[in-house]
């Protein structure tokens, strides 16, 4: 399995957390909450599309709404393959971070 890029990993994790409310605007908002800054729409869209194409995500459409100019929402959901990819990332991350003691920020 190919390893994910950083943005792909972050987006995949965000989708995991958002459960059935994962779509572009929400993903962007949540990433802002964590990292503190908004990403461009395109910056999120491109990895999303690639994750979809690689089979980590499946999509379904929601209802159109006025606030979206009458356009439907495209929701994203993790597939089994997506979960597997996350598990693999988690294993790698834990291995990498194991026993790491960083000098505290205050020191």
């Amino acid at each position, binding site marked *: 399995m190919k390893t994910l890029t950083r943005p792909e990993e972050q987006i995949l994790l965000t989708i995991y957390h958002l459960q059935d409310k994962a779509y572009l605007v929400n993903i962007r908002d949540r990433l802002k909450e964590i990292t503190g800054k908004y990403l461009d*729409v395109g910056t999120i869209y*491109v990895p999303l599309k690639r994750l979809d194409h690689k089979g980590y995500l499946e999509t379904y459409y929601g209802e159109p709404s006025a606030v979206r100019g009458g356009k439907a929402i*495209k929701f994203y959901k993790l597939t089994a393959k997506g979960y597997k990819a996350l598990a693999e990332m988690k294993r790698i991350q834990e291995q990498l971070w194991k026993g790491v003691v960083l000098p505290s920020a205050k020191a």
Partner: protein
Amino acid sequence: MQKTSLKLPKSANFLFSFLLPQTDRTNLLGDYTEIYNRIAFSRGKSSAKLWLLKQIFRSFPRYLGDGIYWRSVMLKNYIRITLRNFKRHKGYTFINFAGLAIGLAVTLIITFYVMDDLKYDRFHKDADRIYRILSVGVKRGTKNSITAGPLLPAFKENIPEVEFATRVVYWGGMQFGPPGTDFRNVDEGSVIRADCILGEADFFNVFDFKILKGATGEALSKPGAVFLTPEKAEAFFGSRDPIGETIAVRGFETAFVAGIVEAPPTTSHIRFGMVAALIPEKNPVWWDNFENLTLMGYVKLAKDADPQVVEDKMVKLAAETKFPEIFEPRIQPLLDIHLGSADHYYDVLNVGKNDIVVVYTMAVIGILVLLVACINFVNLSTSRAGMRAREVGMRKVVGSNQRQLISQFLGESVLMTAFTFVAAVVIVQISLPPLSTILDKQLTLHFGQDFFLLSLFFLIAVGIGILSGIYPAFVISSFRPVNVLRGELQTGRTGVTMRRVLVVFQFAITTALLVGVFVVMAQIKFLKTMDIGYNREQVLAVYNPLREGEDLLKQRLATLPSVLSSGRMSASPGSNFTRQEIIPEGFTRPSDITASRFHIDEDLFETLEITILQGRNFSREYLSDLTDGIIVNETLLRKANYTVEDALSRKIDIVDEEGNFIPLRIVGVIKDFHYTTLRQSKGAMMFLFNPQQSHLLMVRIAPGQTSQALPAIEKAYKETYPEGRFQSFFLDEPFDRQFQRDRAFMRNIGIFAGIAIFIASLGLIGLVAFSIEQRRKEIAIRKILGSGEKKIFSLLAVDFLKWVVIANLIAWPCSHFAMSQWLRGFVYRTPFRPWPFLIAAVSALFFAFLTISFQTLRATRTNPANVLRHEG
């Protein structure tokens, strides 16, 4: 959340419609609108707009990169499908591929050929400022590439625009060797032969021949200064430093190596292995005399000089000197010399000159071959595409849209042509070395140097790809899948008319080329078998450097059984010789009549079998023949307005080298014979009885005894001149040599016409195969209903041959026109006969028939059951 919901501004919507990927455009627009609304609600509409603007700018590269990424994924898919398609139709792919690749290669080679001719002399830095001085006849405008020596320093001195001027003499293949060499009797091993040019101090200022080592170009003002090319210097000195070394050069009192000069490139009309100092005082009669036109002159003009003004000044200046009044000095641009001197006389330096007509013809042939190859490719591609209607239908059913199909078809043919381009370059690379010898031209392909040309051809190839892809792309992709899959559409029937027109066109071109080949052949044969006025077969010309004892040699030769007769002459027909002004009785100077002068003995006319029309031959019995006898040819009489009958005893004055008049009396008139190229009409000739100056001995050998005669003649020569070196040639050799260029021309168009026919035949194979494929069922049913193989064969064959016949009808008038233009370059031309046309037609039909019959026979031989079984 919000009370009102805003729509995106129209401009943003418009921009996004380009920017956003098609698949997700809707929901992305939704996402943008949602965020836009949110910002507008919390921070106002203007900051929302600002955000949107920022988004558009910042997202642009992301979306663009994304698009490229996805397109490359699709490209892989297309290439895979294209390759699969190629594999499935191997034969068709090969025919199509080979035809275009060969066509492109041929056109590339022809382009190199033409470019080589156009590149001549362009390597000189100031090529556009360099001119050659011509002497143009005032009355008839005959152009001579020679001028009078003193004019050049006069031009330089008196015309401020003339920056540099140099006289140039072509000195021929000169031997040089170690000091003290006796060139009269030397063995070839110890001397080096080099083509020698004599030039003055300005030679290297006018021309850009690089001096690699040694003195500057001004050294050419020192007597005996010689510049050698590295090759010649190395051949003689090896690794020794040659600068300043004394050498012996034939015909020079002293000589030393002043420097090493880079050998002229193959695209220089001036070629040399050695440049030596021209010292006019050494040879005042020929090099420093206004009345003798013997050498070449070149000038370089100042940067902003108007050549017309300069020319006028030259004419005026020349009129004030003793320069012959029948001529005017004219200037010819350097860049015009190689291709624009076809009709020049005395153009000895310009040996490699080509005719602009030949270059144009080659260019036209190149374009025609490319056209044939293109037509072929387009034809085959479109006919094949018709067969793929079913595939298209299927693709549409599965969800392909027209745009995707168009790009698929276009992509396929562009890919194919890109491959053919690569193949063509490989073909050119492989075939250039052998072709250089055949075409008699040094052609090479440098990827760096010819990058522009190669890119141009690549673009042409891709253009052909697009052209051949457009038709199937747009027509076939617009099929309605239901009709196609139901089988209602006559697949491949579309565009039949266009394909037929193209095939007719293709065959017309090849037939026209063939006619061209045959006409050139006929013309060469015509010239070679033309009555040239003397018998050049079986005549051996022997050089006689030593004059004493020549009568002895003639007597010795007369005793040989294999020798019929021998006669002496000052220059052999077919080479260059002296031309000078004559003043026939009733004319005053200037008479504007020039004639070529020969010195002969009494046996020459008999030996060459030249007919005496009136009067008599020279004879030793008339002592006065030696001092005032002259024999002239018919042309000279015509120029002097004499008739053959009243010519005898007429007086003719000639002017000798010192300017004195020598009165002569006509004793005989001979029939005209051709002594130079047959492209020009016969010139005026006069013969003086002067055996002592006739150093060329013509020996007529008895028929069929050449092998015995040669050693016997050489033996007689050695007996007479034990010290001398025997040198001889057959008289028909220089005569044949003048057809070299015409023969090369014929061979070249022959080769390319052959290739064009090959390509056209390939195209026909493809079309016939395809068309038979279409009619397989028809053939099968005909057979079942009792039609014989012969009948079906003729049904199919006639259908195709009809078009070839039409092509011939188109080709004939075109090639007739083109070839009569070409023949105009000859004074003596073969009449148009029907056979070149008929042979061309027959061979075109033959090739077409050959290709058709193979395919057709196979179709008629198939068991109808096998065909019809597939029904349903």
